[in-house]
């Protein structure tokens, strides 16, 4: 592929200037996360941003762990910092210096923080908890780096939580569904969840942010009441009226279809508001979401994720390729934001 080189195109890279951390997540495996990461790294290097890369789980493998298809490695440039496990550090194909060694160990050995001396390729494997990720991001911020990029493994969305990273890039593609209509539906659904409205009440946001467990009821004067239900799974067993104080519920943990279904059967469904911390707490299907919202229920979040871009990989791991131009156009029309073909962006 030959493109003009003088003016390198950099869609959405300038938008990244404002953020300290960025996560790249895929709706499925093989939606082009690594290609997208490489693109972002390349451009950030070109504009001279001090960049760090870390990951959750194993990533950057040469051969896809599940499908066995060819996968691009992650290319890091001079001066970038990265975190990977001891095992993958010893297999790196670049020159780098060790700058820190973590005292606790992962399945692949301790985590090594290093700085690239001469550009090359590396496999990334990282922390397994979002807690650890947060502390890594803080470490890089305090070390004066401009931005930390978190590469996601498999189809984990949790790292895109606004409590972990400031901004996110969503990757989708033929791997999600070879049927364009299905692909658009599924992507649009996640897109809608990401863009769920925040509650417009900073006082209540403050109050609810401090809660780490349980289900709470909010009354019209923003007073909150613990319903003493330890888990949403026990909600159906409860005998008390969960809406005794008001029509708004705050669920601190995960929200499933089962919970939405239960809420739909309540009398006050038309006035209900369900508040969750952020979209990564929602483990629901589009069907249930639609039923709930059509009956009048509203879902709101405490923190909204900042979606920087939507990227599309037209090829699926089983070899099926969809028409990139058409897919990007239709998806873009549906989401009302630009969608980039990750394979053509470079």
């Amino acid at each position, binding site marked *: *592929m030959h493109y003009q080189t003088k003016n390198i195109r950099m869609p959405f890279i300038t938008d990244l200037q404002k953020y300290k951390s960025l996560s790249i997540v895929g709706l499925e495996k093989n939606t082009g996360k690594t290609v997208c990461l490489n693109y972002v790294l390349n451009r950030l290097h070109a504009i001279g941003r001090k960049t760090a890369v870390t990951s959750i789980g194993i990533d950057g493998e040469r051969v896809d762990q599940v499908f066995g298809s060819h996968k691009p490695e992650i*290319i890091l440039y001079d001066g970038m910092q990265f975190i990977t496990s001891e095992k993958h550090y010893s297999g790196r194909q670049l020159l780098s210096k060790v700058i820190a060694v973590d005292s606790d160990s992962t399945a692949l050995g301790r985590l090594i923080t290093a700085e690239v001396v001469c550009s090359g390729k590396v496999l990334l494997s990282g922390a397994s908890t979002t807690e650890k990720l947060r502390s890594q991001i803080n470490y890089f911020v305090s070390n004066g780096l401009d931005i930390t990029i978190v590469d996601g493994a498999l189809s984990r969305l949790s790292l895109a939580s606004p409590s972990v990273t400031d901004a996110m890039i969503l990757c989708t593609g033929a791997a999600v569904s070879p049927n364009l209509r299905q692909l658009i539906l599924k992507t649009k659904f996640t897109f809608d969840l990401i863009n769920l409205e925040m509650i417009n009440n900073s006082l209540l946001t403050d109050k609810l942010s401090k809660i780490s467990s349980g289900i709470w009821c909010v009354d019209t004067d923003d007073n909150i009441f613990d319903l003493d239900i330890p888990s949403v799974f026990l909600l159906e067993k409860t005998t008390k009226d969960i809406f005794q104080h008001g029509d708004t519920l705050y669920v601190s943990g995960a929200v499933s279809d089962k919970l939405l279904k239960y809420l739909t059967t309540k009398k006050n469904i038309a006035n209900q508001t369900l508040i969750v911390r952020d979209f990564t707490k929602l483990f629901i299907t589009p069907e249930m979401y639609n039923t709930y919202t059509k009956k009048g229920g509203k879902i709101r979040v405490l923190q909204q994720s900042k979606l920087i871009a939507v990227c599309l990989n037209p090829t699926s791991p089983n070899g099926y390729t969809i028409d990139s131009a058409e897919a990007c156009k239709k998806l873009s029309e549906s989401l009302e934001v630009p969608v980039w073909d990750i394979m053509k962006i470079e």
Partner: protein
Amino acid sequence: MQLKDVINTEAGFKYCIDDLNIQSGIGRNYLMNIRWKTIAQELEAEWFFVEQIIEKIKTDEGRKHLGKLQHKLSCIHNIKQTILNIKNNDVLDDVQFFEVKNLSLQTIEIAAIAKNMGLDLLFLIPDLSKVLEILDPDKNNIAHFYIYESYDNRLPEVRNKLKQLTNSLNSNTNTLSDEETAKLEAEITATYLINQEIEDSVRVSLVEKLNRYTPTLEATLERLAYIDLSVAKAEQAINRNMHKPTIGSHCIAYTNIVNPRLDSVLKPQGQECQPIDISIAPGVCFITGANMAGKTVLLKTMGIAQMLAQFGFFVPAAVADIALVDKVVFCIGDEQNEMNGLSSFASEILKINSIVEDSDKYKMLILIDEPARTTNPTEGKAIVQAIANCLNSKNSYTMITTHYSQLGLDCRKLRVKGFVNNNTDITITPQNINKFMDYTLQEDTTDNVPHEAIRIAEILNCSSTLISEAKQFLDKEKNN
């Protein structure tokens, strides 16, 4: 006997150990492996070490240094395996070299802090500047490591070439044809391999250079672990008002001794653990007193203090003059073990039996809580008399709490003063009973014990039927 063998014998002792603010993994390892010490000079040296640290850290200025010192100690990793690899001349990877370099840097900084605090002559931290020299050829003094170019004069050239090649690949991705890209990539791989080979030879020579410093590195880890532990001991002594014991020849004597665990529970409730004075000599000393008068706590406290002292810690008393023993044995109820088919009486009597048997071989601190309380009073009393007779002539220190009276023995008896409420109109409740108890010990020459069980039951809000029935039975007994 090491600390890890006995840490679970008494919850209050474990509490004191867990309370230590140890920073490093090597410090915690060291702690678990400290030996039970029975040589006075050894213990005095340990206590002296802690005392010197306390002197330096009790000022505000010292506190600041302490924070820095502790932070640095927390950065020390256990690299025993790496040191072993160097000893065997195994090639290290960059991460291991980094660990050695990091240890050197941190150690040098810790030594500097120690010097600032005036503790350098006490700490005697090994000098690792020669090790640092090997791993820091450019004298950057920064904790990072890779095979620096100054290690081998072929490296700069190879790496420059590598940089040029990768640059031309990275900046021309869109203009290069597939063949050109493949050719460039092959060249990069080849150059990378040359670089690797040179690096590997450097690694071999570095290990050879480091080899002679393995004893120093090992000594450093050991020393830092000891310092970490001692600093934690000193900090604990200040926070918990613990003091350095002295070793007398004969008695175990404390002024104002408290139970640290109980103290930590009471303090937040605005109450205080009443300090007690006690002195015991070899032989048997009975402790009597009403229920809830703190007899069991006293036994536990004596045991905890003895264990702390002989593992090299300060003790929770204002003044302590102790005698050294071979071990501390507790026999405090809760030994019942149905799994072995033993009743509470059976397991207790077996334990006491082994104590009596051991008392010829060892000098011990023996703490027995209400022996034979789970059998009939006639035989129970006889058993208590027998235990006391057997142990009274031995050189062990034995403390036995009991509710049996008229023992008719020639043993010393200490009695907890108990209730002192007569001057108040506040109702006594289980919550405030503490305030009406005087836990002071006094010599008791009579052969009686307090009879306040029913009264305690009343205070604890037991049902009036139960209480009045008990009183009736008691009266009947007296009238007979």
